[in-house]
């Protein structure tokens, strides 16, 4: 944390739900009375490209973009995307990655290879990196779509926002009829 601002970088692949997750986090910060900003480029998100979302909150936030190397928390929805952005982590920051691979079609050209050693490289760089089996947890809860909320739950452990507010916002923003499931998913992640 620098100047009292918390910086969270959420990364993944188009279609994985990065945008909704960052929306929820920013709303939680706002409801807690903090200044909050969120920035992302989503022009190509529907075509399987890289998606990143910057979320910043604190007393007063100016730039919507996190400066290099100042991300207090990085939450990656996919392994190679985690690896792509790991250098943005601040010293002592928290790195959380979903143990999930999405191999891009470009590998079919035979010129590019998916980093099969992603986990090792992540651990070598950030020994304390947290690997989350979000897909397994979601399956146990009975719905593969809960991955995002589980990941938010895991991340919520490393930032100082109230559990009640998280639950209130998730209830408000969850798709119709899924509020209870998402609550469970969040709490499962929060205690993982």
């Amino acid at each position, binding site marked *: 944390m620098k100047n009292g601002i918390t910086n969270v970088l959420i990364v993944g692949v188009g279609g994985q739900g990065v945008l909704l997750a960052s*929306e929820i986090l920013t709303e939680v910060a706002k409801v807690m009375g903090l200044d909050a900003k969120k920035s992302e*480029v989503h022009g190509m998100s529907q075509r399987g490209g890289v998606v990143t979302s910057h979320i910043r909150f604190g007393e007063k936030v100016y730039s*919507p*973009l996190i*400066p290099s190397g*100042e991300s207090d928390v990085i939450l990656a929805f996919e392994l*190679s*995307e985690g690896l792509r952005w790991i250098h943005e982590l601040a010293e002592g920051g928290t790195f959380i990655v979903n143990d999930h691979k999405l191999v891009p079609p470009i590998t079919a050209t*035979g010129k*590019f290879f998916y980093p099969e050693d992603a986990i090792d490289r992540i651990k070598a760089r950030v020994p304390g990196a947290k690997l989350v089996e979000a897909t397994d947890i979601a399956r146990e809860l009975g719905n593969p779509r809960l991955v995002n909320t589980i990941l938010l739950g895991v991340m919520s452990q490393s930032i100082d926002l109230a559990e009640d507010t998280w639950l209130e916002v998730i209830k408000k923003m969850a798709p119709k009829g899924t509020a209870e499931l998402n609550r469970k998913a969040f709490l499962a992640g929060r205690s993982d």
Partner: protein
Amino acid sequence: MEMLLSGNEALARGVFEYGGEFASAYPGTPSTEILQVIAKFFKDDVYAEWAINEKVALEVAVGASYGGARSIAVMKHVGVNVAADPLMSLTYTGVGAGMIIVSADDPSLHSSQNEQDNRYYGKFASIPVLEPSDSQEAKDFVKTSFEISEQFDTPVFLRITTRISHSKGIVEIGDRETVEHEGFERNITKFVMVPAYAAVRHKIVIDRLEALKEYAETTDLNRIEWNNKDVGIITGSISYQHVKEAMPDASVLKLGMGYPLPMKKIAGFAAKVKNLFVVEELEPFYEEQIKAAGIEVEGKKYFSNHLELNVDRVRDGFIEAGLLDASVKSSTALAEPEEVLPRPPVLCSGCPHRGMMVAMKKLKLYTTGDIGCYTLGALPPLSQIDTCLCMGASIGHAFGITRAGKSDGKFVSLIGDSTFLHSGITALASVVYNKGNTTNIIVDNRITAMTGGQDNPGTSRTLMGEPTNAVDLKAICRAVGVEHVREVDPYDLEETISVLKEETERDACSVVITNRPCMLFPSKIKDEPYTVILEKCTACGLCFGVGCPSIAASDEKNDKGKPKAEIDPITCTGCTICAQVCPSGAIVPLEQ
């Protein structure tokens, strides 16, 4: 009440709150959501429509303004080029009710073909330019823009950028306020731009600019935030936010009005600070004018006109200028990134554009391309688009290259339905008129897909969700004089190849139109998935060549160690293109 809104949402909210009655736009990232938000939330109070292109969007909005409705025309930066003709004379006529042109610029070209700086249009047209620096200002400046427009009888240019459009911040919202305006009042010397009347109006424009300069000196859009006077920074738009974070101790002159500049205020500020800088994204727009006024200032020397600025780049500039200590940067700011494979955007699984491009590749055609999802066909493995300049250019390109007569190979143009309607029709008529013999392909997926699935005059739905008459593309092509207009099913490769072959061999202008809808918009399409029979797959790699995100290399290899293919049943839509290119019959419906 406070809400978390993107710049686009806040701007749309501003149109509602400040008495806007009429909004027209052609979609374009990063501006598109503005009209979608108006149509979704405020359609009882504000009329909203997709125009066929930006020129028409501006013209109808101008009509509404002449007719007494506060109006707004919205477009991405390159859209203003298309609308430049009405703009340059609109500045002479002035407006009726308040009128705003929103230009959404795209520094860093996140989703554009260039990163032009549209503030120059304000100077070019002698109209005021307002530049919000966050979501709250995106809303507030709508009010000020309407007021300036009515007070000075001028259209107002509200210039936002991708970071304003797509960043969310906290916005204080309010209720709708309306302003009464009369309908159109005949005033021939004001509204009819023939030479004699326009000459008089030009003088009015020159005087208006002088009045606006005075306004710029006193408006609170431009404010000084005094601090340490060692460094004074003139800035605006999103750069203001980066500056406040990177240089918290500096004095700042924040320009909310980027044109005309408050030159007296700037001179006063300059006189009080030791080192004066301009921090602005893209071109040295303020810097050139300030230097021309004889004021010593540094800008682009430290803050390049290439790509977006951010806190790092602002810090780096001041470190280089010797005014900031390098230790402000994070200890990991210079950490080496890991090497990771690229993840470029791709045509969706089952996209109907794929079949057409595979057929074109098979025939070894050159493709003058256009702007839309099909432009993604320029990337490997398809690599089937050879040019892409601006919307509508493909048809003229194919004709020009062919008529120049120096290139081997056959050149066909490839254009989408929305782009054809936007600016392809005139090009096609011109080619026919000039006795062209090119083949022109319209990939008609019945939607404007690239920008997120907007309706257009071919889709028979309006932005407000009402059914309407649809343009008949085939009838248009025939009407401009094309004798050979063919429809093909892009999921039938054999048919598509044979029709393309016939038409490209014919010595006459022809049009080939595909007939399959987009897989994503207006609703997702998914048929039974296909699968690879590994025993039959020889790992020839032909299916990889269609560039489908559902096809991947499996762990199974042939005896030369080449990977066999596999298909993801969840994302495969069953379009069958890969099955049609497979020489071994190894790709079959999963059901079997």
